[in-house]
């Protein structure tokens, strides 16, 4: 699971049987109380129901492998929509793709061009679930309109099922340890273990870590003499996660040669499983007049067990940055996992598409997104929303 916090938006992605929507109200409350975003559903911030007014909300997921294991509002899409409809005023729910195969659900609210509405006065809620009157308006166009990257926003998500068994083995502790021991001198491993035992709280690692040659541990054959205790200040899961990022090829999707400031935070779970976040500052060339550079993310989560193998890849690094197209990313990611089936969802803001001179028919037109070697594209579905195009594709191995 991962969370990405930008000054203006938050992305939370959780797997397993997590109860993501149960955190939603708290998230909106924190945005009002701790980050100072305006609220319109209460007369005062002291009202425990006061929650920040989102400009836009997206909630999506693929159909579950084990739906009966889910908890809370996630026991069915119908329950999730009910929960979200009870929370927000103007949401819409969609199902995209084949009902009898891998499909995808989406719930979104968007800015109807509404004007500011006066705060509502909530009635007391029953059993903690929001009542209709304490619903949170969304999409209020307010004085904070200004330059926004919402106008040039895209998100690519690749969800892969039935991973190639041999490739999936890379995400097991046993195999990763064997690979790591070939790459990391024994002393470094011992130093890591010792340092790990002696460490107490989270803060003490901040400064020390800032200079960590962590990649020395995973990326290069450092000789014994230059590995310091500081460099070893990682955990086994992180150290092995870093090794796997390199050996499986994920570290090469946004290579350091193109993105020198990028950083990967990866973890290999016991006995198996892998998660990674990448932070990719935009190249200097794309800085604005004040020298502000945006930053984007990518995230991967892998479930390698044969009976339920799955991997997800998601990024909002703009296609065409550094000449890299979305289709290049898709080809590279699919080649790492070689899944039996996969879906690709590609969200693009309309003005981005307009910039590139493609109309609604041209959305995600990069033809190479349709031609993935070794796979047959079964579906290509385009949804047009107020500000976004969504292209959903579904592939099966040939």
């Amino acid at each position, binding site marked *: 699971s991962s969370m990405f916090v930008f*000054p203006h938006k938050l992305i939370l992605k959780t797997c397993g*049987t997590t109860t993501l929507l149960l955190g939603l109200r708290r998230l909106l409350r924190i945005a009002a109380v701790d980050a100072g975003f305006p609220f319109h559903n209460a007369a005062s911030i002291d009202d425990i129901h006061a929650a920040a007014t989102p400009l836009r909300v997206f909630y999506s997921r693929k159909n579950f492998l084990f739906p009966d294991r889910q908890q809370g509002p996630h026991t069915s899409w119908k329950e999730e929509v009910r929960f979200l409809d009870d929370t927000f005023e103007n949401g819409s729910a969609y199902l995209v793709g084949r009902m009898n195969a891998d499909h995808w659900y989406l719930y979104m609210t968007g800015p109807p061009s509404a004007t500011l509405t006066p705060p509502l006065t909530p009635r007391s809620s029953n059993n903690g679930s929001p009542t209709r009157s304490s619903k949170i308006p969304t999409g209020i166009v307010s004085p904070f309109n200004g330059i926004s990257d*919402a106008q040039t926003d895209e998100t690519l998500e690749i969800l892969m099922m039935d991973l190639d068994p041999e490739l999936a083995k890379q995400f097991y502790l046993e195999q990763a340890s064997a690979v790591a021991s070939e790459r990391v001198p024994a002393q470094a491993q011992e130093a890591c273990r010792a340092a790990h035992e002696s460490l107490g709280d989270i803060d003490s690692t901040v400064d020390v870590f800032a200079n960590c040659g962590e990649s020395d541990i995973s990326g290069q054959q450092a000789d014994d003499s230059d590995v310091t205790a500081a460099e070893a200040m990682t955990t086994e899961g992180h150290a092995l996660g870093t090794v796997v990022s390199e050996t499986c090829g994920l570290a090469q999707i946004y290579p350091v040669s193109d993105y020198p400031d990028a950083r990967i935070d990866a973890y290999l*779970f*016991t006995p198996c499983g892998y998660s990674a976040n990448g932070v990719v500052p935009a190249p200097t060339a794309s800085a604005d007049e004040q020298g502000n550079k945006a930053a984007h993310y990518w995230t991967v989560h892998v479930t390698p067990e044969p009976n339920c193998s799955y991997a997800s890849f998601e990024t909002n690094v703009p296609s065409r940055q550094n000449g890299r197209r979305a289709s290049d990313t898709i080809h590279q990611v699919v080649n790492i996992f070689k899944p039996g089936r996969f879906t690709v969802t590609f969200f693009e803001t309309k003005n981005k598409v307009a910039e590139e001179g493609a109309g609604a028919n041209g959305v995600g037109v990069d033809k190479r997104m349709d031609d993935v070697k070794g796979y047959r594209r079964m579906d290509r579905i385009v949804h047009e929303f107020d500000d976004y195009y969504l292209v959903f594709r579904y592939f099966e191995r040939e």
Partner: protein
Amino acid sequence: TFSPAPGSLQLTINHDVAADLDSSNAFEGPEKLLEVWFAPGPDALPPSAKENGLKAVTPSTWEGMLDMVNCKVLSIVKSDHVDAYLLSE
């Protein structure tokens, strides 16, 4: 091979969580994905928002929300533009 730029991207690890993590039960792969925008962009925050908007919120405050979701913070990469939290169920 990455060599982190000192000070610009900082990785912080939560050793307590990482130390005794066990995910031996096969679990549901497909994730739930939530994206919430409060302003059109980082340079278009409303006047009432803190200078850095959501990035002004401390990790411990987010952890309270993540507890409700059944997630723990494994590690965080902090950068000028985005904070990336690696979580575990």
